[in-house]
């Protein structure tokens, strides 16, 4: 059982290592991940929202849906823990 788990892990790791050969070099400013959407955020965040911390501006304004449903997710997690674990006090 342990040998099977080890073989599965090694095969998955080898596939992922092969996949990282196609990644751009680490720290490249022209990488595709930072070419499309984030220049607009960096250049326009202060002019549009007056917030110097860009992470807060994206979190609260540009990606408001993300944060809102994430709040709903942790609220549901609290409800789930209470309903799984709570014993009625007699």
């Amino acid at each position: 059982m342990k040998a099977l788990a080890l073989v599965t892990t090694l095969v998955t790791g080898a596939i992922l290592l092969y996949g990282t050969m196609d990644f751009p070099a680490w720290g490249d400013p022209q990488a595709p991940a930072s070419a499309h959407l984030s220049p607009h955020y960096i250049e326009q965040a202060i002019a549009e929202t007056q917030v110097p911390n860009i992470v807060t501006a994206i979190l609260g304004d540009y990606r408001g849906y993300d944060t809102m449903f994430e709040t709903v997710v942790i609220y549901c997690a609290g409800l789930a823990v209470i309903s799984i674990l709570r014993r009625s006090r007699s």
Partner: protein
Amino acid sequence: MIWGIDLLILLLVVICAFATITIKDLLSAAIVFGVYSFLMCLLWAEMGAVDVAFMEATVGAGVSTILFIGAILHTSRRSKD
């Protein structure tokens, strides 16, 4: 970023992750996992992600470790592998 510090923290992170899953005492494993989270926090502060580092220092090294210890003290400390 300085690549020497980066490589040192990455090495310590791998050692801590390996120790977390090999230690047989579960309470020690939870404490080593707290150390792992704090090293991850250092790594992110060094990469420029200050908000993520703050979040990891409060959540990963603080609340998550307390939850693990609380659950382990209500169950058993022993582990077979």
